[in-house]
């Protein structure tokens, strides 16, 4: 009989070990899945994990890692602050869209002015757009006690409609021959977020690293971060310690919104290039997985963002080279989260084998 025994306190070793174990388990069971689909499992796993980093065309894929990973990390860092305190912003996708719209709007308003103040103003606009969109669920929660999960999620769909409206109306490229979509910001030198397109370097990557450091310092060295952790661990103890829940809700939702907005702005003025109807591709939702995969820890999120980007890119290669169905790749990514959460049990519990008791 297998018995689970609660540990007196969480094991530090297992906290570090479980993500590694989860990745290995995903490789084994994912390989099994690919084998059942009639593909060579070793080949498939190698294509997903090895090809983008060290394969023949790695020079092309490595920059992609930065491009895909940066928005995931940037958004996930913001979300993790709220998640730690039990404040659930599920609508980062919407805040990402709004950041892109406002930021791009600011940039396009200055077109074709050539000045170094354009991009900083766009950055402020992007952060503001995401922040304002997140303030809607925050204020409703604080004032009327609404559920921030539902409100923030619903606002994603509102934002998507706004995005469509913007691409077809207000922000449409006047020289675009009637096609939906704004001017391409990468062709407007004062407004692009690219630093070096050849290596995938844009300002979003820089901000992602800054956000990781900022979150790390906040959570480990600052009173506000301590209060965030305390609220998540023991809400009553937090109130006893003098935490004001209202301020925490406004801060966490506001910060995650602003970071998601920034991610949107860097995307639209760099890799995305323009506001289009299908500009958003789910970074805001995937970032939720990244946040948990990284155990809501800033450095963990950095690694998880990289890993997630890797499976995306590797998955695409596997699709095109090996003909794996897209759904199989999604199952594979799902497995990763599943194993991580399942193995998480080991940090708090010890597994013991015991002879069946004679009743």
């Amino acid at each position, binding site marked *: 009989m297998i018995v689970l025994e609660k540990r*007196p306190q969480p094991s530090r070793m297992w906290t570090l070990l479980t993500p590694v174990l989860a990745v290995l388990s995903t490789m084994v069971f994912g390989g099994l899945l690919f084998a059942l689909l009639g593909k060579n499992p070793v080949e498939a796993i190698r294509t997903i994990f090895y090809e983008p980093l060290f394969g023949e065309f790695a020079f092309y894929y490595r920059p992609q890692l930065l491009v895909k990973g940066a928005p995931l990390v940037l958004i996930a860092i913001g979300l993790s602050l709220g998640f730690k305190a039990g404040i659930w912003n599920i609508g980062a996708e919407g805040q990402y869209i709004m950041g892109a719209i406002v930021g791009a709007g600011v940039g396009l308003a200055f077109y074709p002015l050539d000045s170094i103040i354009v991009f900083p103003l766009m950055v402020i606009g992007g952060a503001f757009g995401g922040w304002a969109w997140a303030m809607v669920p925050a204020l409703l929660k604080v004032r009327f006690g609404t559920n921030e999960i539902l409100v923030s999620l619903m606002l994603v769909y509102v934002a998507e409609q706004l995005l469509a409206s913007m691409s077809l109306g207000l922000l449409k490229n006047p020289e675009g021959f009637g096609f939906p979509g704004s001017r391409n910001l990468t062709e407007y030198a004062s407004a692009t977020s690219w630093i070096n397109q050849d290596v995938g370097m844009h300002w979003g990557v820089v901000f992602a690293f800054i956000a990781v450091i900022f979150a790390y310092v906040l959570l480990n*060295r600052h009173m506000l971060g301590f209060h965030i952790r305390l609220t998540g661990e*023991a809400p009553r*103890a937090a109130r*006893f310690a003098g935490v004001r829940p209202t301020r925490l809700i406004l801060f966490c939702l506001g910060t995650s919104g602003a970071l998601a907005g920034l991610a949107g702005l860097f995307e639209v003025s760099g890799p995305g290039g323009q506001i289009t109807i299908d500009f958003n591709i789910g970074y805001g939702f995937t970032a939720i997985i990244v946040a948990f995969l990284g155990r809501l820890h800033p450095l963990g999120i950095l690694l998880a963002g990289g890993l997630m980007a890797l499976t995306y890119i590797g998955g695409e290669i596997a699709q095109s080279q090996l003909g794996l169905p897209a759904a199989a790749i999604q199952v594979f990514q799902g497995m990763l989260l599943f194993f991580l959460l399942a193995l998480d049990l080991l940090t708090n519990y010890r597994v013991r084998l015991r002879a069946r008791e004679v009743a």
Partner: protein
Amino acid sequence: MTAPLLCLQGLTKAYPGVIANNNVSFDIGKGQVHALLGENGAGKSTLVKMIYGLVKPDSGSMLLNGVPYAPSEPRAARADGIAMVFQHFSLFDALNVAENIALGMENPPKMGDLAKRIRDVSETYGLPLDPYRRVGDLSAGERQRVEIIRCLLQDPRLLIMDEPTSVLTPQEVNILFETLRKLRSEGTAILYISHKLEEIRALCDHATVLRLGENVGECIPAETSARDMAELMVGTGLKTPERSGRALGDVALDISGLSVPAPSEFGTGLKNLHLTVRKGEVLGVGGVAGNGQDELLAVLSGEVRSASDAVKLHGKPIGNLGPTDRRRLGVLSAPEERLGHAAAPDMSLTENAMLTGSVRENLVRRGFLKWRQAQAFAERIIEDFDVRTPGPGNAARSLSGGNLQKFVIGREILQRPEVLVVNQPTWGVDASAAAAIRQAMLDLAADGAAVICISQDLDELMEISDRFAALNEGRLSTPQDTAELTIEEIGLMMGGAHGMEVAHV
């Protein structure tokens, strides 16, 4: 004595890191009130859980009427005539008494028949109870009666009672004892768990003492002094707290006309409270659980705010200040619930020291935390209050109840409070730790602090407080000098008769 009803033979049960019961053997006779005595954490609860089929022993066996007995679940235990009244009731507030009892039965009879049987049993055993009253409206004592009647309807051969008097007024305790004596005279055996020695001496025929999971002795309570039993329980000579003569200073905390609405439907609001505490004074606040104790602590700690001049510190209004501002002024508190309220379970002791110590111990500079100083503060608490733990890096939940309580109380006392408010400071704490905590509170008062001790342990309040008041349904009786009070008067205060004078309106 005739053949015993239940024989326990070498029962052993281990949990990770602790042996809850080690080779415990004793017999319970028919028609005997058998006391199971021990400090908190001595293994009493684990032992009765094995008898009641909630926990399986690792080794050892039981004989019921000479037949091997190994209940796989409580239902099997009940079928064999063993019933148990838990310390914490499992009743639904929104249902009435009869409905609650029917819920626990295998084949409940019709509601009318059941109500009649409830009336019969309640009259036979002197436990007045209306089957159609809603449980949410009952006092703790009445709720306990529901649980007892629920057991009696099964005609048990052995009734297990876990700390039954912790929620009762002295008068209710007397009623309960009458009932238990009547049951005994009818041949029902009772296993009575308690750490209150006087009760056991008054009621029980035989006592088994557990210490650290082992049976350390048996005695006839009526023939053994309370002190001897206590020493058997604790294992060493007991030190009773000393009260040095203290001079009372000016009024430190002044509460007048304090009213707070109930936080929830079944919570208790505070109604027009008046009290003053002077420097150097210990004010004891008694009362049955759920009469506004948690609310009183919350309103003093600042978690719940009130009208600003309803609470005054040295004459200055502080009623509308939050916890942080109050700590800055020296009003500190320690709530009843250690894990989750006074301390965050999964955080380290260092982090828990930061939890309330940041203001007065200067652990923050411009919003940034000084972890090294926080750790030093945690180490100082551990050292000064003899907290048994490998170090300040350990999680709060890894500490035993008594050790964590010492940490929580020590954390506040070391911050040199001007007013200290504690709720149930020694609840679930072993006797030696309890004595240390009480001594620390008395020493604090001797140094000129005002102390408010909210507790349900009357012995504790009599021991340390200069004046005593009781909370009843959110109202506070007029505080009176402890030395002049009799136990009957205290019972009346707890029951809501507010002394000789008319209640303040």
